[in-house]
């Protein structure tokens, strides 16, 4: 089953990392990702730009365009992974590995109902 691992963290804190700290975290995460890639279990991975770059469309009639993210929260959605896992336990293991590489914040683990790979190449 495909699981989405949604990454929440305090954006201010992540933004306060030095370039070196940021690079160190990314490097550790790469190790976890490489393992998953080798097992053929890693789907798309995205790191989102800061929520200041976000725009929200409220589907009112007529639709309303608002600056900023959908929800004002203490921790923000900063990125996501799609990972193929046997069950929730396995997905939690992956999240634990990722969490060890990048402490702080939280991961929301959500089973994926429908997935289309699409054709965009980065």
């Amino acid at each position, binding site marked *: 089953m495909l699981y989405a691992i949604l990454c929440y963290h305090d954006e*201010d804190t992540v933004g306060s990392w030095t370039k070196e700290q940021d690079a160190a975290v990314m490097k550790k995460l790469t190790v976890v990702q490489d393992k998953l890639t080798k097992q053929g279990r890693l789907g798309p991975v995205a790191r989102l730009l*800061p929520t*200041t*770059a976000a725009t929200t469309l409220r589907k009112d009639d007529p639709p309303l365009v608002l*600056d900023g993210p959908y929800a004002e929260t*203490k921790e923000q959605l900063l990125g996501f992974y799609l990972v193929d896992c046997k069950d929730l336990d396995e997905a939690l293991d992956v999240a634990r590995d990722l969490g060890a590489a*990048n*402490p*702080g914040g939280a991961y929301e683990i959500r089973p994926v109902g429908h997935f289309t790979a699409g054709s965009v190449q980065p």
Partner: protein
Amino acid sequence: MTDTAWIDAALTSARPQAVGALLRYFRNLDTAEEAFQNACLRALKSWPQNGPPRDPAAWLIMVGRNVAIDDIRRGKKQTALPEDEAISDLDDAEEELAERLDGSHYRDDILRLLFICCHPDLPATQQIALALRIVSGLTVKQIARAFLVSEAAMEQRITRAKARVADAKVPFETPGAAERSERLASVAAMIYLIFNEGYSASGDTAEIRKPLCEEAIRLARLLLRLFQSEPEIMGLTALLLLQHARSDARFNADGAVILLDDQDRSKWNKTLIAEGLALIDKAMRHRRSGPYQVQAAIAALHARAEKPEDTDWTQIDLLYGALEIMQPSPVVTLNRAVAVSKVKGPEAALDMIEPLAARLSNYFHFFGVRGAFLMQLGRNDEARVAFDRAIALANTSAEAAHIRMHLDRLQRDSQPRGKKAGK
């Protein structure tokens, strides 16, 4: 990242909100800073053992406030710190305080904190130093290094600035809409100053002063998060991001300036550019233009061009025209002339800048640009005179080195071919 590195990042990011709230309680900058400092010391003791609190800023405000109130009650007598258990017992209180912080208060707290640093009596350099110390929490040593002065001199500068601010009446009531937007404009200008302190550096000091650019971007993002729908704050943030994106390509190994046209564009930071472009896109939708947005739009046109010849100079010319109307200045016209030279040729550009000669008679870039136009027109003798004047006015060795490169080229071009071959 180690535990302590995580705590450092959390303390840094909580600082503006925590100091801002403590300032609202105590109405005194020194007390607020000291209270925050004390709270940080306790955090360093408590967090590694008890784990990080759910809301670090609320924790720091709560602890900072309690300790400061204790100090005040006890008449500043030397007292032992409360037991750690007493501190870790804050869970419920934290929850309650966090609820209250969710209100709009903290937005004005942070704005007020930034605004205090922009006091009009303070010279620009003091405003910046104060903001970096109080809001960003950089150490005096770090700030002194970025300003290339001694630690003692910077300490004195900050102390003076603080005294001046303390004497001024700080407005603690919640600002009205008009007042808030005035504050926002002052703070935006101050953030731009911080950025320029870092950006205008060159040669061996460029690397040392780079943190100023990074700090300015952090503050701009913070301000934008507080005021999500302000197109000029989007514009400011976009401008800083787009300019900073080029920082790895702006100097050669000797520290000499590399002009935009000659930069290795593969060294531009794509992520920063993407963020800058996204913000200027968002800002334009508001159809409330302003100087930061126009400058960001110009920077965006450069960023979008994969090769220098792809640059949309016609559009840049138009944007500078708009900027001239918003902020008339000979320097803006000078910049516009560079765009005009690409669109209509160096002759038209030269005509455009001649009327500026009197007002820019001591401005390095005027003579650098004038020399370049003359050189393009093959008027080499006049170009040489302009370049000589530019070198005399250069502010940094990198600027001088760049002009010397032009002079060398003129020299080479004027030599007969035979001589060159004989070398």
